[in-house]
């Protein structure tokens, strides 16, 4: 391989792909070809870089210049100015949201500089389809150490020392889970990787799989050695076609290199991995349902005990960890549990990956040290709330989680601390909401999702979530009654307390958490028939508040139905006979003047 003077780390993750990285890549290829630069400048298609909000993005190495929002039209200028003349193009630098300052260097961009990469250490740094690049960054060194130098007990001890807890959300100590499975008797054991990421707004697993598939294979191999398993499955949702393709390539390469299969690295240890594509049922992210699904049955949870560590897949001892958990394993083994535990809080060690989405400037994937205040996550890394709107809450843990409101923003990222405010760490989905989000409607949204995804097996989840949804819909429709609040409380309690699996037990969390922090909104809906966030259509009046109206005419311009009467320097008026209630005027009005 000839040595290039410049490497262009072009993100080809799903986000950047969607914003046009492929077209840019083709144009860049053509230009480099035309200029005869292909030997000295190398394009590396990486997995997700994480900064999806400004994609397509590209990092120019070794300088560390970060370009954003690239288009094919930018190519000639980039090549001419930067790659040939050495003058980076400021027009394509990252622009700070508040100060509007242009920042050329990746390390100076707050989005990146506040992060600590462990699970995502290879994201954007390697070509995920080339095993040598993974190995060049210490890849499979952990597995080699585990397989050749460590006993199962030593691996488990290292994991226990690291303090790594299940990154799928529940936070069960990974080492302990392995210890149980290790002590469980059985000739056949299984290692499963849960890549059935189903939370709305979550894409952590997908990004890791797309950007660094080998780390999962390595993590699973180490786990297999720890519990003495010979077979592993990655349960990946079928929608993640790119992730699946890269995993397939990775498995083939690993086998070719003797890093999977029989007698791995001459250690005498055998382990094989298969990919199982899930058909998209949310409940199949639940461990027992996932196992049933691999067995070819309908994905329905079964009660625990017996726990999978004793009776899992095909009734054999099984461990299931999620993608992020496995991604941390190789480095823990290589650098030691103490190294991993050196950051974080007392009970939550290491880092956590979050998928920032919603009403936040820097939508993307970030990895932060445990113990970071949520505020830092939202404002420094996330870049705050767009359009000068006010932060209202961040939903952590998706439909199973809860919201953290403004007054609790200084809560630290820590399993227990987050639980204290009624949310959960979850798998890392962080949906930020500004003051235009109706919290009742948000709870309704998640309940709609959950009741749709309930497998239908146990009564509280199947019927309870349906009833909760019914009540929330009624409230949002302006038909709520005082008794509904009591019913909601009762239903939520029983659903949480008596459901069979985690899906049902956490189903009511969004409702409980919004009722806890935003009861005034519920009451406004029920007693005043008013939606304070102006989201619930049935409660909107479609009139202009003359006192608030600044007569700017933005609503007039936004209305697609010619329903707004407005003249310069006059208060706007909505002709309700023409109004189609599309809410364009609400969205456009900067003064909240439309009721």
């Amino acid at each position, binding site marked *: 391989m000839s040595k290039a003077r410049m490497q262009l780390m072009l993100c080809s993750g799903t986000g950047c792909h969607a914003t046009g990285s492929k077209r840019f890549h083709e144009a860049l290829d053509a230009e480099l070809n035309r200029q005869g630069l292909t030997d000295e400048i190398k394009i590396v298609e990486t997995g997700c870089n994480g900064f999806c909000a400004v994609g397509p993005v590209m990092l120019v190495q070794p300088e560390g210049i970060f370009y954003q929002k690239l288009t094919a039209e930018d190519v000639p200028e980039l090549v001419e100015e930067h790659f040939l003349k050495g003058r980076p193009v400021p027009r394509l630098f990252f622009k700070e949201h508040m100060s509007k300052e242009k920042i050329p260097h990746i390390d100076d961009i707050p989005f990146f500089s506040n992060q600590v990469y462990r699970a995502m250490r290879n994201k954007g740094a390697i070509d995920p389809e080339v095993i040598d690049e993974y190995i060049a960054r210490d890849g499979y060194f952990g597995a080699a150490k585990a397989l050749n130098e460590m006993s199962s007990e030593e691996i488990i001890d290292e994991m226990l020392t690291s303090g790594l807890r299940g990154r799928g959300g529940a936070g069960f100590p990974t080492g302990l889970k392995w210890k149980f499975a290790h002590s469980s008797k059985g000739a056949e054991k299984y290692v499963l990787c849960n890549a059935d990421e189903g939370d709305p707004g979550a894409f952590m697993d997908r990004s890791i799989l797309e950007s660094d598939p080998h780390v999962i294979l390595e993590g699973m191999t180490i786990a297999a050695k720890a519990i003495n398993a010979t077979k592993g499955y990655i349960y990946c949702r079928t929608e993640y076609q790119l992730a699946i393709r890269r995993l397939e390539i990775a498995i083939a390469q690993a086998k070719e290199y003797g890093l999977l299969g029989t007698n791995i690295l001459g250690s005498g240890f055998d382990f094989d991995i298969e990919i199982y594509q899930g058909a998209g049922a949310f409940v199949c992210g639940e461990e027992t349902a996932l196992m049933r699904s691999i067995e070819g049955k309908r994905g329905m949870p079964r009660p625990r005990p017996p726990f999978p560590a004793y009776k899992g897949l095909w009734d054999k001892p099984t461990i299931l960890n999620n993608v992020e958990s496995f991604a941390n394993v190789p480095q823990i083994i290589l650098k030691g549990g103490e190294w991993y535990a050196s950051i974080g809080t007392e009970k939550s060690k290491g880092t956590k990956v979050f998928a920032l989405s919603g009403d936040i400037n820097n939508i993307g994937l970030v990895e932060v040290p445990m113990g970071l205040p949520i505020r830092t996550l939202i404002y420094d890394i996330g870049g705050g709330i767009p359009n000068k709107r006010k932060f209202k809450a961040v939903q952590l843990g998706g439909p199973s989680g809860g919201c953290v409101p403004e007054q609790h923003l200084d809560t630290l990222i820590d399993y227990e601390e987050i639980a204290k405010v009624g949310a959960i760490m979850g798998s890392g989905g962080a949906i930020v909401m500004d003051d235009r989000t109706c919290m009742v409607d948000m709870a309704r949204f998640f309940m709609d999702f959950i009741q749709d995804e309930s497998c239908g097996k*146990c*009564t509280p989840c199947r019927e309870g979530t*349906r009833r909760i949804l019914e009540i929330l819909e009624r409230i949002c429709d302006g038909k709520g009654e005082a008794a509904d609040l009591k019913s909601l409380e009762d239903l939520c309690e029983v659903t*949480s307390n008596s459901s*069979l699996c985690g899906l049902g037990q956490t189903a009511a969390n969004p409702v409980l958490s919004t009722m806890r922090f935003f009861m005034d909104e519920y009451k406004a809906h029920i007693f005043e028939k008013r939606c304070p966030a102006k989201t619930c259509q049935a409660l909107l009046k479609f009139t202009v508040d003359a006192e608030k109206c600044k007569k700017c005419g933005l609503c007039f311009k936004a209305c697609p139905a010619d329903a707004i009467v407005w003249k310069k320097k006059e208060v706007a008026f909505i002709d309700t006979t023409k109004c189609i209630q599309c809410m364009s005027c609400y969205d456009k009005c900067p003064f909240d003047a439309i009721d």
Partner: protein
Amino acid sequence: MWHTYLISAFKTNPLATRGVCILPTAVVSFLPWQTSLNQKTDKVRLEMEHKDKSMIIDGRALRFTEGETILEVARRNHIDIPTLCHLKGATPTGACRVCVVEVEGARTLMTSCTVPATAGMVVHSESPEVIRSRRMTIELMLTSGRHDDCLVCPSSGDCRLQDLAFRYKVKGATFTPSGVKYPMEAANPFILRDFSKCILCGRCVQACNEVQVNEAIDFGYRGAEAKIVTKGDRALKDSDCVFCGECVQACPVAALVPKNARLVPRMSETRAVKTTCSYCGVGCQMNLHVKNNRVWHVTGCEEVAPNHGSLCVKGRYGFDFIASEHRLTTPLIKENGAFREASWDEALDLTARRFKEIAGAHADAVGVLTSARVTNEENYIAQKFARTVLKTNNIDHCARL
């Protein structure tokens, strides 16, 4: 701790242990007993420390054997934890959540049918929290589909949901019933599927897949749309179903009933007569459900060998012949190639005379074909008749067919 004491107080109330329903609001009235009962529980707890394989349910120290569930320990000791989806002989599914109990130290309520007893476990089978949960679960079941027509429901009086509603005084009035989502299916001769009565407890699925292993039905669709379906959600008659009716017997409500259940006396009106099936050689023990000198239903006897409740389509549904209008009711004598009715005396006298004549004239000229269908007693009498009256060993039956 106060909470625990309250529970044990409630628990040990004599009415509660007799299975009489006490609503959570009634708990307050037992508060005065609190102190003395605390001491009792503590004493039991102390005694228990010296024994392994013991647990406490409702303040009683109970021994258990490895692998026994909380439910099994409780039932063995006459502690009545209600169940709905639990089907004997099948893997517990923990689906209905009616049997939830409070296990000290557990994060949520636990289903007693699935959780194995462990040493030192402390269980409250009817704590206020448990009762609140059961009442809500029952309420949710009562308002799913249509359960407001017990008056005309074929399973009334033989319905576990009705029993539970009574025990916990739940009326199904909190929510609007979700009504009929899937139409009834009656397109087969034996089984009526009324999905509006189905509470998705899954007993039929267990009965079909784990007991009879016919594998004809399973859960289909998701969430509130869930439905028990055949492969491809086809009608039973076009599925793998063999109409053994194990599912009908397992159904705790009226979601699966005999086809004619709405036209014949309810099960609860009938008297059960235990007998042996008259078809194949398995000798299944069955109950004939009788009213007005007629058999209306047949069920398998769950408590005894050899079938432990199972039957096949013939045993369960092939009983029409008993009341068939084609039954022979009077002796017939053939004259000139045609039968005419005769009195018993005439027919028997004729028979006796002819047998006597022929047997008297020729040795072994009369034969008897007795039957593998009649009783031991009748076979015994038949062969005794052949040997002592007809004086021949010419007796046989279709043992070989």
